[in-house]
């Protein structure tokens, strides 16, 4: 079982089986308050997964007492930094607590996989696989975007561009340049984050970055020599 955690937009957690079956999912759409809700959300999904999952899985968990989580999928962004860090920190310490690995996932990959799976369900697979871009709020009048086109043999979305930032009023021009349809995203599913991780694990691939996807330096101004104050 994989525990997915993503705080790149709201706060989302989920427990999925390695084959993608979602055992439990809980989220808060609040773009703030990640630190407040994450503990309760984790307890909720683990409680549900405990009730529904077959007991006695191999792994770090005690059979019959808690779900045997075998890996933690962490949404690494892009997303507003303060909230994003809460989920990554939680993923890392949860993994430490259970003695299991963290599988980093690009949060936009999870959103893209959700769209691709929806398309497949709706029987749109025969249609020309269109290019589309996941677009999320990056604050400071910017968007974060990643362009995708179809799924590879491992069932993972194919990135045409790496995640990047652009001023809000230039996004349509930028996406037109890639021939990508704009898909504004206001929620990232933790189940999809976990599924990306499950597929990456199955394929033996690393698809996410080790560090948070900030895409922006901490903006600080260097003091210019000794500071003059007063009159």
């Amino acid at each position, binding site marked *: 079982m994989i525990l997915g*955690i993503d*705080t790149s937009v709201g706060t989302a957690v989920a427990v999925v089986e390695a084959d993608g079956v979602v055992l439990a999912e809980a989220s808060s759409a609040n773009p703030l*308050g*990640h*630190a*407040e*809700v*994450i*503990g*309760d959300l*984790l*307890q909720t999904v*683990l409680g549900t997964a405990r009730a529904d999952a077959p007991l006695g899985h191999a792994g770090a968990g005690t059979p019959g007492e*808690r779900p045997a989580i075998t890996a933690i999928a962490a949404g690494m962004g892009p997303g507003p*930094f*303060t*909230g994003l*860090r*809460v*989920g*990554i*920190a*939680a*993923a*890392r*310490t*949860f*993994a*430490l*607590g*259970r003695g299991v690995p963290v599988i980093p996932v690009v949060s936009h990959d999870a959103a893209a996989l959700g769209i691709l799976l929806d398309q497949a369900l709706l029987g749109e697979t025969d249609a020309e696989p269109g290019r589309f871009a996941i677009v999320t709020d990056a604050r400071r009048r910017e968007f974060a975007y990643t362009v995708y086109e179809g799924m590879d043999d491992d069932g993972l979305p194919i990135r045409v561009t790496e995640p990047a930032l652009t001023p809000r009023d230039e996004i349509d021009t930028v996406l037109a340049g890639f021939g990508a349809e704009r898909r504004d995203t206001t929620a990232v599913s933790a189940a999809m984050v976990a599924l990306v991780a499950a597929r990456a694990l199955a394929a033996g691939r690393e698809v996410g970055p080790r*560090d*948070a996807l*900030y895409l922006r330096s*901490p*903006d*600080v101004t*260097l*003091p210019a*020599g*000794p*500071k*003059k*104050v*007063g*009159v």
Partner: protein
Amino acid sequence: MSATEPLVLGIETSCDETGIGIVRGRTLLSNTIASSMDEHARYGGVVPEVAARAHLEALQPAIEAALAEAQVRLADIDAVAVTSGPGLAGALMVGVGAAKALAVALDKPLYAVNHLVGHIAADLLDADAEPLEYPTIALLVSGGHTSLLLVRDLTSDVELLGETVDDAAGEAFDKIARILGLPYPGGPEIDRAAASGSDGLGGTRAGDPNAIRFPRGLSRASDLAEHRYDFSFSGLKTAVARWVEQQDAAGQPVSTADVAASFREAVVDVLVTKALAACADYGVPRLLLGGGVIANRRLREVALERAEAAGVTVRIPPLSLCTDNGAMIAALASELIMAGRTPSTMAFGADSTLPITDIQVAGEAG
């Protein structure tokens, strides 16, 4: 869980130190600190976003190092403790998220505690000291806070007598260091300059603490009515800057040694005067010092000297426990557990202005 000697892991991320501490009851097993101070040096002060990024990277290795030093496994831990506030919001949130997930993963109780009260709890870990006696006045001085407290009981009754109305004392040291062209952090640099700084004439010598009479903030009779135990350092900062500029403008030599020593004397004087006034007013002959600025030798010296004259006993925890650390957070939670308090409920967040009266957040009396 052991109610007499709980094994507690504490997480502290309120400013620029990622602190992981492990205690058993009142016994210190590990005080692991990863500091991002060097990253802030080029900016001349703590940059919140830089600090928060550093916490995220340091947490996991710091927890692993603390466990190795304490020679315990996470499975052995009885409870997890974390700083809920006060401090930098974005930095605090990293610790809160980490602590909650760790507690849920281990299925262990979580205690969210007050950073300032943690500074007092640090004293309990001093194995060589006599037990802390109540009530005591506590003076906490660091780059993030300057607070004067009346502690009747660490786990249930801490009162804020006064605090800084503008800069923290440590910040004042950083700003004056910048005015004098000295590097960050300012505390040790000001000390160094006061001990052997420029005499303004091409040589070096010890500074004269009485060379320049800088103002003592909120110390006039008119201020004392309303701000008897409050501190203010922004006027002092302006006075030092103005003095240096006036000397420069008049073509007079500026002795960095004298400015540093006189500035430091003004800070130390007002800190010690107000702390001892609180001791006298409340009839409490005990003063506990805490916070990173206690590393300042002159502050300790003057406090000990004047306290002795006033018949006040001074306690100073080991300096490694005075700076921000996770062991003090674990120590406070350990006291709460031993006092029978129930764990914090999960809904708490990071509170950058958490009041001192909230010793434990989102917990009920047991």
